């Protein structure tokens, strides 16, 4: 199972806790995780990536295994520790402002 961490606003929107588990078919990529996430939680559509273009929203970042994966192509394979569920895939609302 893939372990996904959502930012606080999306936890309240989807009515879930900090971390959730998803069944994602391989290859596990950012795109396939978001496809699975949005299929189960349709209220999250448009809140992480654009409805139409599937582009990541500007203030959203993706992190896993100590790496910033935000700028990887959405079909790039994710680290093995994410695939095995050892590490979480973190969706983060970037800090903006002061």
């Amino acid at each position, binding site marked *: 199972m893939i372990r996904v961490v959502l930012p606080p*606003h*999306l936890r*309240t929107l989807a009515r879930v806790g900090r971390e959730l588990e998803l069944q994602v078919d391989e290859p596990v990529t950012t795109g396939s995780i978001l496809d699975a996430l949005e299929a189960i939680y349709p*209220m999250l559509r*448009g*809140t992480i990536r654009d409805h139409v273009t599937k582009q990541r929203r500007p*203030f*959203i970042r993706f992190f896993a295994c100590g790496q910033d994966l935000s700028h990887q192509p959405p079909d790039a394979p994710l680290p093995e520790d994410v695939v095995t569920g050892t590490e979480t895939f973190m969706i983060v*609302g970037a800090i903006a402002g002061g």
Partner: protein
Amino acid sequence: MSSVRVLVGTRKGAFILTSDGKRKKWDVSGPHFAGWEMYHLNGSPADPNRLYASQSTGWHGQIIQRSNDGGQTWEPVDNKFVYEGETSTHQWYDGTQHPWEFKRVWRLEPSLTDPDTVYAGVEDAALFRSTDGGQSWQELPGLRSAKGNLWQPGAGGMCLHTIILDPTNPDRIFIAISAAGAFRSDDAGQTWKPINSGLKIQYELPDPAAEVGYCVHCLAMHPSRPGVLFMQKHWDVMRSDDAGESWHEISGNLPSDFGFPIAVHAHEPETVYVVPIKSDLEHFPPDGKLRVYRSRKGGEEWEALTKGLPQSDCYVNVLRTAMAVDTLESCGVYFGTTGGQVYASADSGDNWTPIVRDLPAVLSVEVQTLK
């Protein structure tokens, strides 16, 4: 017994204020959607328990929430607002062309007769409609054909902030956009015409007879006289007696004719309310005195309403969607401020009391009168 439900959208959540018909004691519920910007909440005239709410943040974009029980519980519905057709362009601040980009929903206006039909006014300016309770949205693209390439954003963005449905003619809709102007459809939103004749822009527009390019801040109409419209423009308070075909100024003796909201008394179609603001550079009341101005003659002659409102050192603003009236026998008037106060008057504006004092900045106020 009648009661009142006030729907308040703020920078950091929504609040629902309820009272009986006396409007002396209030219950405050909230924050709902804590931490989110709530640009607008509105109830269906056909089913007062059906509410719609516009929820957004810069991180996650737009959400639409729906309630079927008067705001006790909510469910997110569709948030996909996609413009019809090829991406067209409008004028940017510097006069160059800029592609239409969806940013947020400013206004939700439920149908007068069908709880599942609701209109959404959005930034960048366009009108969307749902006929399935918000489960899907379709643009009415004819609006952007009304010289949309010449529309330009105001300082707050190019927002469609006012939607008025004519209660006597289901095909007639009025909308207003900052800073494009007012528009009317007579065929249920398929085609639109600018209705800005008579509006003045002293120095901004090179063509004084331009059909679009006017910074209309708010429109109001009394349901018994749908041909009479009142307008708070960037500067100038205006009136039309022919459904927007022509406008004339009614600012009269106002201390400033700059402002944002405008409202009409529930039972007196010639009684109008505005909140003068000092200027477009100084978004606070003149002289630090928060005063609602009321005209009982449809404009020109205005009286200051001050009882219960701060008359010194007050530097809040009242935004364009933040004033509303109830329809009880003694008409209630309500407005919210950027300082987080929601003021209410149960006697047509003669006396005011804060319902709440310390909310986040108030973006919108709507009132439901419940039988």
